[in-house]
């Protein structure tokens, strides 16, 4: 467990690292007009690809070869997807999916 000073240093570093990822493109291309068409093309395609990356990121530590073989995650995600396609209510989908997941990992698996 880090000391208070160490915790403050860690938070400062997390803040700095995050800021670098957010500011870097604007440092490279201070004027949007001067960015080449290739960069504009990437700007259109990247958001969706990045969200997909995030979804996989959430599942990165599931062990398919050991019990429970990722079943709680698969079931809860199926619940989120089904509910969201049906009701299109962001909060409802998230809340219900989380309750399903917590129930599964606490009482079933």
């Amino acid at each position, binding site marked *: 467990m880090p000391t208070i000073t160490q915790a403050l240093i860690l938070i400062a570093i997390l803040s700095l690292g995050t800021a670098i990822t957010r500011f870097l493109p604007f440092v490279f291309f201070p004027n949007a007009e001067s960015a080449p068409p290739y960069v504009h093309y990437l700007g259109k395609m*990247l*958001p969706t690809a990045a969200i997909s990356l995030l979804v996989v990121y959430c599942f990165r530590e599931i062990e398919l070869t050991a019990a429970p073989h990722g079943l709680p995650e698969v079931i809860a995600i199926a619940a989120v997807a089904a509910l969201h396609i049906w009701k299109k209510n962001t909060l409802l989908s998230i809340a219900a999916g989380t309750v399903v997941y917590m129930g599964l990992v606490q009482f079933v698996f």
Partner: protein
Amino acid sequence: MIKNLPKAFKAAFPHTIPVLTGFIFLGIAYGILMSGRGFGWYWILLTSVVVFAGALQFVGISLLTSVFDPLYAFLIAISVNARHLFYGISMLEKFSGTGKIKPYLIFGMCDETFSILCSTEPPENVDKRAFMFAVTALHQSYWVVGGVIGGLIGPLLTFDTYGIDFVMTAFFVVIFINKWRASKNHAPALIGLGAATAGVLVFGADNFIIPAMILIIVCLTVFRKQLAKGEE
């Protein structure tokens, strides 16, 4: 000076309601997790104000409770948030000419703020810059308030919160479904899923993000002709 700020907040608020509910909920989950590791509400306030990156703040809980390793923390911050590079490239045009508020718009650009700013236009009588500032500031305030509430009620909770961090997963899945339904061109989504999955399989859970990002860029570059066509 930004013109008519109160008007902009009024116009922005309805657009931020889904994030209000989501962020209060996620923020409370974050606050509960932090307080469970012995961090009081003022620590949550601090991280949510100066870091303001949900995924990293969740990952950061374990960094704050294990052996002190600043370099590792920095590399984690860069790789977990590397996707922001993609957002920045997407917002170059929209943020140009925003003057004094530009640094805050860039600082506050989380996943949710990004998706609203790139998909929503303010009403004609509302200043565009003030609108973007309002969305960003509202989102961050929801996140901060949710976290502090979680930090305050966390110690009082008697039920088992194991598994509550799944809210983050569910949130990204919902964003993914929304993006999928909003576009007929599913190639970027499929490239993202494929590259990330390949990255996990080849490089493992802890090191896959940067290789996956490079693979995404390579795929988008190689298939640029076909993809740019599909977008028109």
